[in-house]
């Protein structure tokens, strides 16, 4: 545990090596995007059509989605590990590779949580956005989302091994999933043509969209958490098995 904490600390500090100023563009774009999205959703929902959620719930959903964006859409260094030289570091340290990836990723979350999420949460509260979870099951749902996010990331890492390091392609696929299937950007319950019901049960819906729905109170918390637990039980063994089989196929050829 001590080694993991050290790794996490190193990862957090690595992002700040050049000074906070280089994190500012990302923070500013996040803040501006959040503000714009709040107005956009207000515009969409004020059309009077039945959205299955109130404007207040949508504001909460969007705000929490921005505040916890990295936790809701887990991305480890494994995505680009074959080209970025991460591989050498991971296999040269006295800690299991997956444990390092978890620690590194969690440590990397800290600067954004402190520099963006905390101030943005305070600003949102001041503007009247509700930031109290509608269900006490939210922390469990978030934990299951993060856990499943790591498992999915391991699968994508294995895919990058299979795809001979086309990490940019993996990135594009992940972005597509985040855009439509996970409910992180567009809540699944807002999709038309009955897609909301069909898509609720696919594994990616148990990622970001699930804890957000639990937080905003737009889904049955018990059923959502049970579904998340089920997907964790299915995806994790598969991820570990594929990971075990994939490791020997790694080929890294420079930066």
């Amino acid at each position, binding site marked *: 545990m001590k080694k993991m904490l050290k790794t996490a600390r190193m990862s957090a500090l690595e992002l700040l*090596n*050049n*000074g906070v100023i*280089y994190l500012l*563009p*990302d923070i500013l*774009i*996040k803040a*501006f*995007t959040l*503000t*714009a*999205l709040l*107005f*956009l959703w207000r*515009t*969409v929902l*004020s*059309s009077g*059509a039945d*959205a299955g959620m109130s404007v207040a719930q949508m504001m909460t959903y969007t705000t929490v989605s921005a505040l916890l964006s990295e936790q809701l859409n887990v991305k480890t260094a494994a995505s680009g590990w074959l080209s*970025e*030289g991460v591989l*050498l570091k991971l296999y040269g340290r006295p800690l299991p590779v997956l444990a390092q990836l978890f620690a590194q990723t969690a440590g990397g979350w800290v600067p954004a949580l402190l520099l963006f999420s905390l101030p943005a949460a305070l600003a949102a509260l001041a503007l009247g956005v509700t930031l109290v979870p509608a269900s006490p099951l939210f922390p469990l749902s978030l934990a299951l989302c993060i856990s499943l996010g790591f498992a999915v990331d391991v699968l994508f890492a294995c895919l990058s091994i299979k*795809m*001979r390091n*086309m990490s940019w*392609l993996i990135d*594009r*696929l992940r*972005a*597509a*999933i985040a*855009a*439509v*299937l996970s409910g992180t*950007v*567009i809540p699944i319950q*807002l*999709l*038309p*043509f009955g*897609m909301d019901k069909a898509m609720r049960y696919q594994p990616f819906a148990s990622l970001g969209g699930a804890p957000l729905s639990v937080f905003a109170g737009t889904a049955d918390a018990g059923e959502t958490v049970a579904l998340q637990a089920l997907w964790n039980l299915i995806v994790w063994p598969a991820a570990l098995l594929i990971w075990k089989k994939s490791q020997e196929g790694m080929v890294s050829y*420079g*930066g």
Partner: protein
Amino acid sequence: MADRITPRRILRLLAVSAKMDLAWLLRDTKYALIGMLGELVNNAATVSGTFLIASRFGGIGGMSADEVLFMMAYSTLNTGLFILFGSGNNIHISRIIGRGQLDHSFIQPLPLSVQLSTGGFSPFTGGSNLIAGAALTVFSVSRLQIPVTPGWVAALIVYQIVTLAIIAARSYLVSAIAFYAPAAAEEISSTVIEGSWFLSTFPLSGMPAYMQFPLLTLLPEGLMAWFPALSLLGKPPLNLTAYYPIAFALLLSLIARAVFKKGLKYYAQKGSNRYVPFGFRR
């Protein structure tokens, strides 16, 4: 000695890039096709999200679902154009600067601007979104029954070029930071290009003017698809002239050019030292 740059020379350089692109497609067909499919899926997912919302609510902020579809077609077309001319990280320029790869360009007998404007041309593997965008444009135009004249087509082409110019200028402007901090700012062009991509596909109609104006100036996502699409539909928003995107692109390009040149001068004096002895980046 540097070659004389003529339109014919530019075309020959584009042909060189096209030949390399074709070589990838022929030698590595499976992965090239998977790459093309990946780009297509990514864009389809981004724009379909907005269109699905418009379908569910019968339009967004006064724009009908068909008008939103036209806007998505415009966006897809522009994504296609972006990939067609920007496949070599030449628009994601902070990656080239941050990785110390600009040095490779310095030893070529061609001006840097010519290398960067022709080096990312990929007509064979980069055209999938352009084709999808063209098909979607034809479909949405027929649904909206827009009278398509040569003038309208010319306006569409000009707007597409202007949108691409704004994306490139913004990227180059911000990427100048990578001259000073190559490691920290290596991916800054991705932050400005992709960080707010979803916002650029969202209709801003119906939002208050105090939100629309910043999205047409400070963070010009409204100029990526919303403003040009409405202008092509004959109703430029906010009582602005339909020429506004052109003026904005020109101004932004001039600022970006000045800032980038300053950074380049600094880089020429200081250089970059990103690589460790065993080949990877620091």
